[in-house]
């Protein structure tokens, strides 16, 4: 929003000021809840509130015990291990399949494109509880309910729409004459893909992969149904924790996850800018 011109009336000034206050309040609403968990995770007592000692910045009011619990309690460590195994596996699967399909979809002549697209996007649209219930029964029939394979397949399919959308978006700006030029110069389809197309769509692929990763890493409804206790993931553990034993260990886990999401966000932002720069869509 450009600065107000010098001839702005008092009314305009007041309105502008009010508007800015409103916006600050909304930004506060967006970010404060996420940041508030961070100090509370260092609480010395097992409550979710600020103690007097904490407000007085008395070191006795703070402790690292919930982080210690998070890192040593077998429930939590197992959940972290499971999440760090399931999410990357699901990501690889959905990124590989999703990228191929996005390239296919971006060709100029695709029969039944509307219907295919609707099917491929459906995992993102169908309410999770319905997906979870369907997979629960079907995967039980297949004998993969309660196995890592079942959870990975389920999470992979939930992640594919994100890969398709992000990769398709990078392909929109893709100059077709580049592949033709490569073909003219004697490159086979595989070589064209590897040396021309891939580097250009790579930012889209990586950010799609990150979306797929976060989909699996943050998913709890489907894993509750498709998984068994052995596959308990971090969100699942947090879910049971919030329902049953409210301990600040959840806040320690939450803080670590917030830092993790800041990391992911930064990566995606950098990738997006890089992609726009390469394709000349933005001044950079």
């Amino acid at each position, binding site marked *: 929003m450009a600065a107000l011109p010098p001839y702005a009336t008092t009314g305009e000034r007041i309105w502008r000021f009010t508007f800015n206050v409103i916006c600050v309040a909304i930004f506060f609403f967006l970010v404060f809840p996420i940041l508030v968990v961070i100090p509370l995770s260092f609480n010395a007592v097992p409550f979710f509130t600020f103690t007097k000692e904490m407000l007085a910045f008395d070191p006795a009011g703070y402790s690292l015990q919930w982080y210690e619990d998070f890192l040593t309690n077998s429930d939590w460590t197992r959940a972290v291990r499971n999440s760090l195994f399931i999410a990357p596996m699901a990501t690889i699967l959905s990124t590989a399949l999703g990228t191929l399909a996005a390239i296919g979809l971006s060709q100029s002549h695709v029969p039944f494109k509307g219907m295919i697209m609707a099917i491929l996007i459906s995992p993102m649209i169908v*309410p999770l509880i*319905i997906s979870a219930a369907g997979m629960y029964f079907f995967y039980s029939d297949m004998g993969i309910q309660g196995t890592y394979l079942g959870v990975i397949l389920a999470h992979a399919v939930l992640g594919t729409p994100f890969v398709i959308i992000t990769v398709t978006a990078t392909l929109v700006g893709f100059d077709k004459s580049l592949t033709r030029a490569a073909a003219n110069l004697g490159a086979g389809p595989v070589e064209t893909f590897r040396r021309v197309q891939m580097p250009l769509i790579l930012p889209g692929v990586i950010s799609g992969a990150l979306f797929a990763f976060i989909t699996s890493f943050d998913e709890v409804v489907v894993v509750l149904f498709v998984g068994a206790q052995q596959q308990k993931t971090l969100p699942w553990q947090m879910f049971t924790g919030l329902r049953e034993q409210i301990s600040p260990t959840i806040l320690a886990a939450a803080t670590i996850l917030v830092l993790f999401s800041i990391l992911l966000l930064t990566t995606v932002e950098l990738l997006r800018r890089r992609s726009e720069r390469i394709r000349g869509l933005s001044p950079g």
Partner: protein
Amino acid sequence: MKRKLAKALFRQKMRALMLIAPLLIFVLVTFIAPIGSMLSRSVDNSIVVEILPRTVEALQDWDSAAEELPGEAVFAAIAVDLKEAAEAKLHTRVGSRLNYEQPGIASLFRKSARKVRKLESGPYKEALIEINEDWADPEVWATLKTFSGSYTDGYFLASADLKRDAEGDIAQKPSDERIYITLFWRTMVMSLTITLMTLLLGYPIAYLLATLPMRTSNLLLILVLLPFWTSLLVRTSAWIVLLQQQGVVNDFLVFSGLNSALYNMISIFTVPNVSSLCSTDISQILNAGPRFLDVMAARGPDAALSTCARDILGVYQSGGAEAAMARTGELQAAGETWGYGDERFAMIFNQTGTIVAMTHILLPFMIMPLYSVMQTVPQSFVRAAKSLGASNWTAFWRVYFPNTVPGIGAGAILVFILSIGYYITPALVGGTSGVFISNRIAFHISSSLNWGLAAALGVLLLVVVLLLYWAYDKIVGIDNVKLG
């Protein structure tokens, strides 16, 4: 030349399909097929004819409207069926299936099956009625006949709070059993509220982002994207931390003394819990008029201090407002001894909690589409309008706002689709009044085991979502979805 072109085109099509095929097959097998097979449970009723084949056949000739018991042939058929079912331990499965339609059938089947095994020969009619007199109830037979087909609409009827009566006609369930219409309605209303809230909060932010210089707006955009990338569970637990009774917000209100002021403000608009009445400033309540006190006292002895409310009303009626106010101090002291001095607000584990937490969670999904549409609206439009003499408001409302309507549509449908199927957040912060239809579906899958009803509710929910998706595709085009 033409044929060559056609051939090339065909090859191109095939190549595209080859690239898509792996994912398409993957999605069909791991996603579409499971959902399809689950949804088919909503009409599947083959269990009755599979376990009681002879009975179903024998019942063909029986007229349920006649209000007479079926003949010996039917009784003989069910005796044989039950014997076989009991051997295979399947009798209670069909019993539980029919119990959904008429309570009591489950135990009728369970109790009878054991004794039927000892029956060697007929006449079965008397023998069965001897075993359990419920067999002499024509309604049991009517239910059996009504639900003897391989397919049933029973689950769909149940999910619309309907059922078939003894004559096989569709009727409403008794009023104390109607729940799904209420739940669907509540899911819709709450999703709509959440959508409106996100629009209200999202519009100014998107506007700010779209009109600020690129560099600044990119920085502020991070504040929008951070919640988006933060785990749903983290955000939900953050709201529990903030809003619970011993939470940060309540602590702050009590600490700052704002709680009483706020409470008094709210009590003027709503009928508060009577038990907290005496802790509030009674003069204010009296100012709100005697009708208000009437309402309070009329709520009956459902809370400890309702006597207190009646007390004030009595004093008010006999001695007027001044006399009642003279007792203010005394009553307030009474309230404080009950510990109502530091009134805390129930902001979570109810509808408020669900709406606040979900508005926060879904707000980025509103801001992003709004922002991308607003970016394409040139500022010169507004300037042109102003230079033509329009006021600020007119320029915004008549020129800028109409240009952002596609963004509003896209954001609203997206947020609505996402919120209508929510499960986790309502389950954690919704209490009893803030749960959605999804929570009920989950209940029927894992607790009550009425999988057919869960499937029927799922179909209804899915239909709503698909309609909205279709609208979204028409308005925005699914190819134009942007993330991050």
